[in-house]
């Protein structure tokens, strides 16, 4: 038995399991997405790519797509910048470093729905601590401008710790001698950061980006609990729209089409990052 052949037998069990729980539903959703299937109208027939064509005429889809992109780009960027800064701070040696690291993790440890409920109260115009601290009376979740940004802010608060953990792990792998050597050579802090830390941290940063972009793109529970997609759909993301179409209005065909769109987008994003990652490692 050659190595490759042997490997195949090792991989097979997980492949079988994966195909049952992942591939089969995936193919079924693809099949559904080519159907006009409305349970309450008793309609179920094959319509080809009509559902996909309808996407471009569906203002609500375009709006949800725009919201999802805005949310993803803004929250991931902020989380990375903030997470990197905190990770670098936490990587220095100071007293009670362990305690600080533990405290930073708290937001991430709170279940999403709980933290969304908590933020709903924080943002409350009347009782909310945010307005109290700022001394203003802004209706954060009620104004079309603030609502989506409030959701981004909550997500940044919640998932920056995740970025911090991964980046801290990455920082600890960088050998101390490199810093010392650089300092001996007269490199300043900025040089050390851009020439040593960033390049060596690149693979970890890419992993962080994969996780965070995919999660942000599929965001559902946090925003659903916080605003339910309102006001006037200004915070409705693709996943929320797909959920409403599938489970509230029982349009299984078109709902599946929306789910496939989310799948294709996240698939595209992962392939893009994995390419970057494999290039990065080779360098």
């Amino acid at each position, binding site marked *: *038995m050659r190595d490759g052949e*042997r490997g195949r*037998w*090792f991989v*097979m*069990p*997980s492949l*079988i*399991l994966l195909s*049952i729980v992942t591939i089969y539903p995936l193919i079924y959703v693809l099949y559904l997405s080519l159907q006009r299937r*409305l*349970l*309450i*109208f*008793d*309609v179920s027939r094959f319509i080809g790519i009509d559902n996909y064509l309808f996407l471009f005429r569906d203002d*609500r889809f375009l709006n949800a797509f725009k919201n999802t992109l805005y949310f993803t780009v803004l929250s991931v960027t902020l989380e990375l910048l903030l997470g990197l800064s905190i990770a670098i701070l936490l990587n220095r040696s100071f007293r009670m470093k362990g305690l600080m690291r533990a405290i930073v993790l708290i937001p991430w440890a709170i279940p999403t729905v709980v933290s969304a409920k908590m933020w709903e109260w924080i*943002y*409350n*115009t*009347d*009782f909310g601590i945010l307005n109290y601290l700022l001394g203003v009376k802004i*209706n954060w*979740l*009620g*104004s*079309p401008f603030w609502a989506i940004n409030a959701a981004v802010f909550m997500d940044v608060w919640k998932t920056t710790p995740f970025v911090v953990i991964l980046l801290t792990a990455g920082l600890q792998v960088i050998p101390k001698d490199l810093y010392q050597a650089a300092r001996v050579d007269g490199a300043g802090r900025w040089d050390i950061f851009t020439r040593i830390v960033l390049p060596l941290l690149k693979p970890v940063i890419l992993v962080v980006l994969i996780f965070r972009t995919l999660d942000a793109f599929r965001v559902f529970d946090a925003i659903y609990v916080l*605003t*339910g*997609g*309102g*006001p*006037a*759909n*200004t915070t*409705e993301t693709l996943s929320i729209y797909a959920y*409403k179409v599938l*489970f*509230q*209005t*029982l*349009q*299984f065909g078109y709902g599946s089409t929306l789910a496939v769109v989310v799948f294709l987008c996240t698939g595209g994003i992962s392939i893009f990052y994995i390419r970057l990652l494999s290039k990065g490692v080779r360098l």
Partner: protein
Amino acid sequence: MKRRKKVSKTYPGYADLHRPVILGYSILLLLLLPLFAGCVSKKEPSGDGVTTIVFKHGKIAGDPALFRQLIDRFEVRNPDIKVKDETLPASTDEQHQFYVINLEGKSSDFDVLSMDVIWVPEFARTGWLGDLSTLLPADKRDEFFPGPMQAVTYKGGVYAIPWYIDAGLLYYRKDLLDKYGFEPPRTWQELVKTARYIMEKEPKIYGFIWQGKQYEGLVCNVLEYFRSNGGDVLKNGKVVINSPENVEALQFMVDLIRKYKVTPPLVVTAIEEPTRHIFGSGRALFMRNWPYAWNIFQRKGSAVRGKIGVSRLPSFPGKSSASTLGGWQLGINRYSKNPLAAERFVKFLTSPESQKTLALTIGYKPTRKSLYRDADLIAQQPFIASLYDIFMTARPRPVTPYYMLITQVMQPEFSAALSGIKTPEDALKSAQKQIERILGAE
């Protein structure tokens, strides 16, 4: 032989080599086992002739033990039936999702289900509910309030039995109205006048709060304005949402916030509980809410205890008030293996006796009219008894299997009007077009 020998030089032994593979497949088999087990019937046939039925319902308000006592009473009287009651997640959306997934999959894992008033026509249309017309023959139907009865009837058949009822109410601060010599308002305009007058004297108080977040409760609120101005969403199967009456009503809601400023902008994100908190801490003069808030306000330590009253919602001049109907109904899963036992249980839970017990123990409002003349109920729950007139005229949301599609159109449009993204005219025009398209697809 030759080949194997070569292998054994590099690797330990044949058996060692295959152990992980065998382990892997065993684990796979174990993981798959439940899948196959799922195909075989799960219910163990009980030899002693006892049938077990499963009852799915939302969270029981109040003490679940009191509710279980009622089920125990049923089991004592029906020794051949055991009832397992299983609580679903608190959010009604999640309950709807649970039923949709399981009923679409023809699940027979539960027999009796409790349904929000807006789901019954939809579930009846999809063929998920057993026909209960024999359980509730035509001559018995007027024992129930007309609103819920209308909501559970689909194409002449009855698909669920009304279990308990809810309707929108106007809560007011009796002490403040008395102090400034006002009566509870009969029209919306009187409400505005009263609120503006008292807000001037009591600067720290909001005038009128209600629920304006983009969710189902917003539709309940808006319909109360539409209908108290003679408007509606559907009339004889026709879409009439874009009517002058409705535009005027929706404009009035916007004006409450923008023009009269008796309603704070925060209502645009408010659901029931935040408004209940504001009113309960004594910071609002009027509030639209469901009856559940009353008992909370009357608890010891409540800031408004003994200072409040309720009345029916105001209307536009010359029109009549129209509370939106809420409440839950019991139906039977069409795929149930024990429909007869399930029927007996539904009959028991919706009987006058059970409804009375539930009203006295956990405050569920009966759907049977006769109970509102019951001496015990009047003595122990005078508040519930006082709601009779409001329940009599409470109106269900549009009774159509397509309601869930229609509400998905109305919620963002109403929200857009309230938050100033669209004018009421534009919002209703757009809603009219979308709803016509939905109904046209039939």
